[in-house]
Each structure stands twice: as C-alpha cells, then as structure tokens.
C-alpha cells in the first residue's frame, strides 16, 4: 500500500488509487470536472493539476491520471498549480455564456464554483463565441449545449456506464457536441442522472426548471419507494411542494445514481387532486372527530356481525410504522390480521423469498456489481427494479457473464444470455442447475465446456467456474417452488464459493409486510366481502383497484360493504367510494422506516411540512397567502391515526412501534438496536425464523416443481413495466409521457400457429369480458406464453395477475369494422 504526502499530510492508500482520490480521503477536494468516482479518469479537462514536488513523479501533473505511489510529495496549493488551474478555467470559459442568473444550474454548478474560486472574473477573450443549437431530449431533461466544457462525463455515463446508445459525442475540436443525431426523447430509463452528473448547466432537470435555487430549497435525505431496492435520494422542496429528487450516494445500494421512475415518481405528493380533507357522511370534518366516528362504527359492526366481519388491507408502500400500527390495531380489536399482498400466490412467493434471506447469503446491489456470474431467474430487472439492471451492467463490464432465465422478451442495456423458458418450467430448470452444479463440483470432467447446444449446461459450467456468483430471483412471475430452488442453488454454490442471493420484491416495504402478513390476501378479502362475510373494510394506503385486476368484481364487492374506511394520500376509487376518509401523509412529509429487499433498514425523516402546495392556492409571485392556518394541512401519519383507532393500545411514538415489532414479531429482532453502528445500515435477518418458514410451508407445501400443463393454450402473464405499472409513479405527468402502450408479446412460432401477425389488434376473452391489446411478435420469448404489459388501471377480466387462456379465446379484431371476427 503506497504511502505519500499531500499538502504535508501523510496518507496510505490501496494500490491503484489515483492521487485525486487519495487527496479526497484527506478531505482535500482537488478541483475537477471530468474525474468522477463512478466513471474514472480520462484527463480531459486539465483542471485537477497539482505539483509533484518529490518522489517517482515530478512536476505539474493531472492528479486524476497519476496513481498514488510510495514517496510521492504532492502540493495542491503550489503557486504554479494554482495558476495553471486558473488558466484552465479561463479557457473553459471562453465560449461559455456569462449568464448564470438565467441558468438553472446556477447555485449548484461545479463550473460556477470553480470559476469563482479560481478568481476568473473578467473575460479577456474578444473573439466570436462558438454557439450550438440545443436539442429536445424529452420531458425529463433540458439541453443547453453552449454551457458545455467538454468533460465527457455525460457520454461516459450514458454510453459506457448505463449502456444506452442514443446520446453520443458529435463533431470534433472546438465544435464538439454532446447530444443525439436529431431531436428526440432520450431512451434510457437512467437518463435523468445526466442532470446530476453534468458539472454545468447543459443537462438540467426539466420539470423543476426555474422553481428555485438550491439554497432556496429545503433539502433532506430520503429513500425511494418506487420499487423494493430502496435507493437513496435527496429531496428538494419549496413552497410546500416537492420540486426535485436527486440520487444520494449509498455504497451498498444505488452508488451515485438512481432510475427515472424513482427520480420522477414523486408528483403524487403535491398533486392538485390529492385528498387532504377528512370526510364522513359525505361531509368534511376534522380528523379527530372522523377517527372517533370510524372507531365507533367499526366497533359497532364487529359487535353486530362478529369480529370477523371487519377486514383490513395494508400496503407495501406504507412505512414499517404504519404497517406495524395496523397489525397492532387488528390484534388489539380482535379483528382478523390485515392483508398486505394482492393475491395468495404473491403472498406465498414473497414470504418464501424472505424466509430464505440469511445474512450470510443475501447480498446487496453492490455485491451484484462485483459478481463474476449472475443468474437472473424469473425477473425483468429494468421493469421490476430498474437499478438492478444498472448493477448488472457494471458486473458485465467487469467481466461477469449474465444469464437471464425468463419467459419474457427481456431487454437490458448490456450483453447477456437469455434462456426463454416458460414460467412454470423455472423451478425444474433451477433444480436441474442444482444437480449439474452438484455433479460437476465433485467430478470436474462431468460437464462439457459451454456446449452451445445446451444453454443450461453452459450456465452450470459458468457457475462451477465462478468465484462470486449471484442468483437473482423475482417474486412476480416465479412460483414458490422456483423461489425455493433459486435459494437452494445459492446455498449449494456457497459450499465452495462466495455466492449470493438477491430477491426482487413487489414493493418498497414488501419485506416487512411479508414478516407481518399472518392472514389472507387482498383477493381473499374481496371474495369474503362478495360472500357477505365481511361488512366493514379498513383500507390503509393502498388502492385495491390498482392491485386487484378485476375491477368490476371489486366494485360489486365493495358495494356490499356497510362501511368502507380509507386512509390514504392518493386519490382513487378507493378514496372516492369510502364512507369515511382519513388523509394520511406521504413519506416526504412524515418520513418513516423502509426495509428493502435484502432486509436493509432505512429510516428517513420528513422533507417538508404538510399542506397544499402554495402554487395551488396562490397565484402571486412570490406565492403568499394571508390568513390563519395552512390550507390542506390535515393529513397525519397513518401510524398515528391507526394508533388512535386502537384506543388503549395506542403507541406513544413511532419509535415505540419499532420496539414493539422487535419484541413481538419474529424476524424484526434486529430492530432492537436503536442505533446501528455508525455508518452502517441495520440489516434484518429473517432466515430460519421458523414462524415465517412454517407459514410459507403451510401455504405452499405441495407445489410441484413442474406443474402439468393444464389443458394447452397459453400462459397469460401480466407483467410489470418500468413506467406505468407502479402505483405511485404511474401518476407522474412527466413519466406518463414516457410510457409505452402496453402490448401483448408472443413468440413467432405461436403467432404463426394462431395466424396472427405483429401489430394485430387482438381481443383476449375471459369468462366475463374481453381484454383488448396490440400484438407484438417477439423473437426472444418462451413458447406457450403471452406476456401483457401491466396497466396501472387494469380492466383485466381475470381474477389473477396470471391466467391460462385457450387458443380459441384469442381473437383478432378486424380494425376496419372494429368488430371481433367470429
């Protein structure tokens, strides 16, 4: 490990560390534009010049290009180095507009900072400036090319790091241009990071343009809740409105970046239509009175029809506190335990996954990046957990081979092997891999190396040769048997390698919901309502119309209820149909604890004070309002309202809930540590919790590895999309612009068999209705599968997310007559 001296401070760093990074460890930030820890060095901007006074390198050198070596003596404050950096700024500023006041980067601009700190204040250059035409890049990013200083961060990030192919470097020399061949929406779902990574105002966040300067914003750390990964973010809020999200560095999860679903999904929190008023008997009321009313009515229904007549539905997007308070409420009142998951299959799948998590086997997203072989089983990373796709790309760039076993036509921004396999074959396939890996581990000659005819043999070979394999397993498509086999595969590999298991779950707090769910699924609750067994329903921060595909059936069921109480911050049929409505706060207002898919506990505080966004109630500039009170400030944290409903067993604080969970609910024990060791996240460890395990076994004990194909036809899958499927982000206006129209995807051989072709409008017939969509014939798909992109307002005439559909139920629609052919 080389030891060197920087500005008279000695430091020892690992071999291969650049001098600029070594200085950072001492807290010395050498000015830089092109260097970025995630992108490495290119030596393009020349701003990081420092003086090497003694040692193996001498003179003025770029600190981002020189490896730290023993005996180096470096000065960052040497007069020559300082002057050199001043000159670099002067020439980088030659063509740059002097108009920071109208630039949206102003206030958080690296170029502005370095220009000011270098003392360059007067332009000496008198020549004509080079100017560029800006491009339209879609709803998320604004382009202002004249502000470019040619650091190449954008193209290195976009092309190399993110693997996207529609933004590049054009032209040469003085004219160099970062953009596309023509105007058009950037295609990568990670494009938003360009706003963070560009050190000047070329790429800025478009929806938040001109909303304020960074110092105007209330800024606070938070976590993203638009999928189960829990990427870390910084929230900027102003005038009671969330204005912008940025990625916040977390070494274990998202690194420096985040996805656009997470970055732009926030708009629900300040949306004009957000219900902020408690309501009962159709009248606005105050929260306390409404809570009292709700409690009375729930109790009276329980008294009249029995405790089982009250049902509760919880949410995967609620904080652990709200989930815990709901469970405690049900315990205290003697009502049946709440349902958190939409259907039984999902409940069983997630519980099976969570019961397998073990501190020694489950790994972070970072470990996925460092893997040398990854098997992705039954998961579409870019749709179900977008940043996983970016992590897989880094793994692949470092030499890992990625194999995806999934029936869908998976698309990833990297080179990977796809084994298109029907969802119900997955368990058997993984079992096969386990056997092969087991045989080869004992008899290295048993496997023919990478025989191309047999992709599974190649995958087994890959695993046997790997040192750090990771098995990624979804919970949307795979059945319980497949999830078990994926876990087993990771454990078998563990015998002589550093293997890992990584699950993707269906929601931000699906992990804790899986630990808490002791009862039914939402689908069962709906069925019980339809049969008249349930008379009162309490819905907490979830829209059953989003989760239960068959809207008509649900509407009919809810109509039978005597009482529907809804607590939420989203507007929807579930809030509009409620007899009693209680407005709750979002994560941006009250924060909360979220536990990601690997059991990582992340607590966040609120980012802003509740209340209707000023923009919506005042049209002066700057917006202001006269009068008493804050409009729209009724919403309260869900845990607080639920706690109030539980009467005597009310929690005093949100911390009490976590302590209660740690004491009472198996799997949450680690929450006892009030404070994790500094700099570390708390991790739950739920493996071997026989309680959860037993529960899964009950649900799932006889799930065969290879279920018999029930009567031919196709396996109809409703599958998640990056934009437009997730409950919160599907409301974001800027993301709606990016949404693709959901299509039904089918393998060419099946299309031929059914005499259908690409682009056909088709109708899928169910018992009570039709689903209309457009057919996409996709080459890389499993036979026997019809995969339909999931819509956030489904009108899906089947009861489950997935169904079997007979050939004759798939009909082509004659577009001229818009009638279904007989």
């Amino acid at each position, binding site marked *: 490990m080389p030891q060197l001296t920087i500005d008279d401070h000695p430091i020892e760093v690992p071999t291969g560390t650049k001098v600029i990074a070594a200085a950072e460890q001492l807290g010395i930030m050498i000015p830089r534009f092109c260097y970025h820890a995630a992108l490495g060095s290119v030596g393009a901007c020349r701003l990081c010049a420092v003086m090497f006074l003694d040692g193996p390198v001498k003179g003025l050198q770029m600190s981002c290009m020189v490896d730290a070596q023993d005996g180096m003596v470096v000065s960052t404050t040497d007069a020559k180095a300082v002057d050199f950096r001043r000159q670099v700024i002067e020439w980088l500023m030659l063509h740059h507009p002097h108009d920071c006041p109208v630039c949206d980067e102003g206030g958080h601009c690296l170029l502005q900072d370095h220009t000011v700190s270098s003392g360059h204040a007067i332009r000496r250059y008198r020549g004509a400036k080079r100017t560029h035409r800006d491009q339209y890049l879609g709803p998320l990013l604004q382009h202002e090319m004249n502000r470019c200083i040619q650091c190449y961060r954008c193209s290195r990030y976009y092309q190399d790091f993110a693997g996207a192919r*529609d933004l*590049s470097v*054009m*032209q*040469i020399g003085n004219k160099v*241009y970062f953009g*596309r*061949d023509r105007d058009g929406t950037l295609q990568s779902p990670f494009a938003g990071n360009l706003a963070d990574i560009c050190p000047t105002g070329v790429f800025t966040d478009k929806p938040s343009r001109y909303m304020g300067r960074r110092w105007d914003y209330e800024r606070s750390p938070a976590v993203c809740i638009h999928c189960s990964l829990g990427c870390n973010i910084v929230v900027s809020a102003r005038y009671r409105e969330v204005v912008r999200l940025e990625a916040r560095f977390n070494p274990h999860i998202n690194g420096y970046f985040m996805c656009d679903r997470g970055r732009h999904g926030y708009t629900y929190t300040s949306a004009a239509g957000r219900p902020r008023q408690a309501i009962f008997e159709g009248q606005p009321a105050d929260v306390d009175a409404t809570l009292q009313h709700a409690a009375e009515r729930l109790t009276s229904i329980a008294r009249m029809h029995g405790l089982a007549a009250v049902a509760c539905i919880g949410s995967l997007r609620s904080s652990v506190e709200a989930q815990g308070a709901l469970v405690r409420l049900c315990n205290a009142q003697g009502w049946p335990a709440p349902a958190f998951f939409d259907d039984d299959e999902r409940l069983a799948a997630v519980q099976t996954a969570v019961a397998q998590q073990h501190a020694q086997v489950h790994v972070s997203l970072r470990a996925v990046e460092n893997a040398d072989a990854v098997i992705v089983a039954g998961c579409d990373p870019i749709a179900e957990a977008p940043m996983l796709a970016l992590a897989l790309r880094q793994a692949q760039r470092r030499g890992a081979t990625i194999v995806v076993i999934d029936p869908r036509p998976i698309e990833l921004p990297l080179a990977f092997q796809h084994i298109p396999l029907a969802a119900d074959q997955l368990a058997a396939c993984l079992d096969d891999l386990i056997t092969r890996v087991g045989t080869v581990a004992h008899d290295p000659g048993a496997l023919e190396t990478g025989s191309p005819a047999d992709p599974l043999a190649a995958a087994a070979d890959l695993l046997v040769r790997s040192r750090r394999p990771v098995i990624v397993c979804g919970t949307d498509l795979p059945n319980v048997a497949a999830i078990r086999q994926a876990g087993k595969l990771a454990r078998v590999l563990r015998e002589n390698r550093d293997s890992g298991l990584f699950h993707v779950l269906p929601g931000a707090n699906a992990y804790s919901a899986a630990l808490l769910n002791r009862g039914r699924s939402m689908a069962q609750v709906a069925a019980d309502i339809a049969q008249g067994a349930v008379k009162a329903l309490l819905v907490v921060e979830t829209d059953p119309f989003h989760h239960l595909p068959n809207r008509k059936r649900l509407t009919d069921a809810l109509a039978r209820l005597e009482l529907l109480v809804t607590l939420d911050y989203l507007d929807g049929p579930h809030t509009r149909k409620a007899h009693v409505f209680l407005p709750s706060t979002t994560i941006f207002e009250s924060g909360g604890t979220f536990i990601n898919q690997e059991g990582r506990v992340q607590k966040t505080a609120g980012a802003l004070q509740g209340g209707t966004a000023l923009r919506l109630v005042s049209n002066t500039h700057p917006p202001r309002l006269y009068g008493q009170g804050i409009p729209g400030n009724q919403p309260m944290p869900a845990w607080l309202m639920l706690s109030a409903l539980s009467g005597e067993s009310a929690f005093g604080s949100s911390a009490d809930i976590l302590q209660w969970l740690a004491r009472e609910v198996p799997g949450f024990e680690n929450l006892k540590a009030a404070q994790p060791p500094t700099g570390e996240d708390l991790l739950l460890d739920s493996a071997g919790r026989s309680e959860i395990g037993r529960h899964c076994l009950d649900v799932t004990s006889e799930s065969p590895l290879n279920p018999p194909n029930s009567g031919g036809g196709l396996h109809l899958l409703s599958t998640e999309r990056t934009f437009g499927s997730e409950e919160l982000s599907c409301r974001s206006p800027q993301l709606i612009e990016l949404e693709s129209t959901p299509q039904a995807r089918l393998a060419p051989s099946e299309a031929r068999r059914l005499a259908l072709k690409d682009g056909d409008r088709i109708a899928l017939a169910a018992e009570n209705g039709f689903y209309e969509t457009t057919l996409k014939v996709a080459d890389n798909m499993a036979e026997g599968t019809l995969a339909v992109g999931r819509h956030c307002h489904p009108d899906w005439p089947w009861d489950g997310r997935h169904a079997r559909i007979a050939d004759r139920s798939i009909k082509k629609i004659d577009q001229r007559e818009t009638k279904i052919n007989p």
Partner: protein
Amino acid sequence: MLTPLEEEEIKFVAEHYASLDGAAIEALKIVQRHRGWISDDSLRDVAEALAMTTTELDSVATFYNLIFRQPVGRHVILLCDSVSCWIMGYDNILEILKRRLNIAGFGHTTADGRFTLLPHVCLGACDRAPVMMIDDRLYGELDADKIDAILAQYE
C-alpha cells in the same frame, strides 16, 4: 435504401473487422463515393447495415471532416491552410478561388453546383506549398495563372 452494390461493398469491407461497427468509416466512404455526401437517410441505412444506432454512426461521421453530412458540389476543393502553406501565402490563393468561383469563402458551393471549397490541414505536400486538392488530384506551387487552367479541367 442502400443499392445492392453499396450493400455488397459494405459487406466486403466489414469482413475485415472484428465487429460490424469497426467498418463504420469505410462504409460511410463507400456511400459517399456513390452519392457525394451522407444524407440523414443514408446515415440511417448505413447504421442499420452495421447494427449501430444513427447517433453512434453520426458521432463517427461528424468527427471526420471528409465525411460530408451536407450536400457538396460535383468537385470538392481542399485548400491547405496549415503552416507551410500559410507561410507561402495560401490566403492569396483563397482570395483568387473566391473571386473565380464567386463564392463567399470556405464551406460554400458555387451556384452551378460545380465546386465546394473546404479548408484542409496539411495535405502532406509542404515542399510544394501552397497546395490544394480537387477530388483525388493534388496541385502544388499554386498561383493565379495555374488556378484558371486547373479549374477549367472540371465540369
């Protein structure tokens, strides 16, 4: 649409590279030889043939000043404006060319579409400075008289 001949030529050169996109420059040169320049449509067709995105290919095309992304005249004059030619008075030659061709300067095409005038950094014939090249032919030791005779050779 690429012509069958263009397709064949591109296929032939691509065989010499480890990956299709390695042939990007050669493929652009082939199409430019047939069509004079690379239109947006040509760009798209070549990109498709090489399994590249149009952005990736345009990044290559715009890097090279001899790949023309705008229409040029029937003949392209490259006038050297580098050191030796500058010392030997390339600016005189430029003035003469401008007058003879009746154009505003570099980057312009004559009204009849006969010539486009472009600057070029060192044509590698410094010993004969000032130098210019028309299409594939090099002309050195230029002066006013020579220029008239040279230009007259081109239709």
